[in-house]
């Protein structure tokens, strides 16, 4: 119980700093918008999609583009998540507090997840407006996929952010280490998003959601068990 309270404490501290400075969120929001514009320039706003007829390429590809944007934007937040502690020696203080080190991991993870979800709350409607995707009736299912996908991303992301925090080349190392582990999340999240937006005639959605949940559990377990070694000094 007290470990849970420690985790909440770490998360509240991080979120308070973020609420006051908005450093990560502002950078992410503008970067996400830019990514959406670049997709439009690269693929052409009116290029026709494959199916159904009348759809544009951007609408057809929207599930994949959305998750690429989420991943690239999320990397920005993750890369920053241990920087404050590294610069001020705060991680040493966090480590010295009594109790389980897993609490630090869970707290950091929760803070990263909240920031990422807030960004997605902006990114999803914005991309739907820009690419003219109709998803107002599909929001509940979309919310579920987004949360499940984000948990898996942030679980390994927070772990590797801690591991690479004091490296000179951390901006390169974090995506290099993180993205290979994210293949199951990309596959599951994009497929589930496409099923929600483009229709699900075979009723596959539940299987994909279950797979995402299972992957989340595996990633969370492995990272929670090994995190204490990642922030050793």
């Amino acid at each position, binding site marked *: 119980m007290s470990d849970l309270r420690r985790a909440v404490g770490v998360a509240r501290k991080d979120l308070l700093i973020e609420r006051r400075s908005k450093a990560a969120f502002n950078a992410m929001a503008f970067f996400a918008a830019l990514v959406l514009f670049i997709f439009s320039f690269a693929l052409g706003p009116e290029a026709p999609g494959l199916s159904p007829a009348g759809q544009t390429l951007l609408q057809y590809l929207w599930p994949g583009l959305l998750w690429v944007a989420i991943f690239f934007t999320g990397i920005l937040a993750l890369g920053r998540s241990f920087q404050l502690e590294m610069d001020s020696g705060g991680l040493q203080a966090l480590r010295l507090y009594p109790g389980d080190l897993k609490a630090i991991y869970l707290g950091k993870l929760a803070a990263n997840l909240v920031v990422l979800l807030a960004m997605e709350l902006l990114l999803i409607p914005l991309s739907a407006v820009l690419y003219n995707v109709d998803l107002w009736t599909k929001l509940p299912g979309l919310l579920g996929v987004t949360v499940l996908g984000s948990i898996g991303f942030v679980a390994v992301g927070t772990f590797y952010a801690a591991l*690479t925090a004091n490296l000179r080349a951390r901006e390169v190392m974090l995506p290099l*280490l993180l993205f*290979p582990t994210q293949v199951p999340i990309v596959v599951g999240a994009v497929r589930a998003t496409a099923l929600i937006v483009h229709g699900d005639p075979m009723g596959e959605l539940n299987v994909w959601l279950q797979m995402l949940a299972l992957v989340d559990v*595996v990633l969370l377990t492995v990272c929670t068990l090994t995190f204490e070694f990642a922030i050793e000094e």
Partner: protein
Amino acid sequence: MQQVGSLLVWIVLAFLVATWIALFARRLSPQKAGTLWGIVALPVLAFGLYLGLLWAPPDVLMGEVYRIMYVHFPSWIGTGAGYLTAFVCSLLYIRSRDLRFDSWASAGAEIGLVFNATGLITGSIWGRPTWGVWWTWDPRLTWTAIMAVTFAGYLVLRALMEDPEARARASSLVAIIGFATLPIVYFSVRWWRTLHQPQSSPETVDPQMVVALRTMMLAFLLIFGYLLTRRFALAQLRAEAELAALEPDELEMEAAGD
């Protein structure tokens, strides 16, 4: 030839098991075992290549093209052995904090990546005449490519870190997380799409091919063992050199004191 080949496979297998027992009984040092494996690997490799490239019959459908299998499939044996070494030795390092395990793990990852590359390249060369493309997004291809990226990341991370203990700790965790996620990556890409032909089993191919393939697998396993021990020795030398570079003053002072 069939009997000679089968007999040789059994003899080499017995030799491998014997050297492993001697290793665990500490009657044999890893370096000596590596040298032995290297010496035995050469004739086995020559014999296996003869069996595979000349003696075994051509494939019913693919003709001579299939013969690349005798290098392609054994490469995956080396890949698996290498990454498994990296994973197990990383776990052992985290438990024991003995830097020799870190050297073994890095050797395993590096040799595994070499075999991973030969496996991907030979597969690509085979795929061009057979499937008509160098690369397809088949699950097993995709999976092995992700494997290569995972352990390439491991090696890049090691190259960027200087402190031996911190490097060993961080890279061990990367190997553990990377290896542990490989099964779920495999299943996710399999659900993503599937095209690769199912593996042939010994029951469905010509017995001559089986003998040739088994000989090549053993030859590659021996080469893997040889390379692994050499790479480990190199890692040990580097660690000593790093230590010497870290404390030149102290060493000089010690020498002066004598």
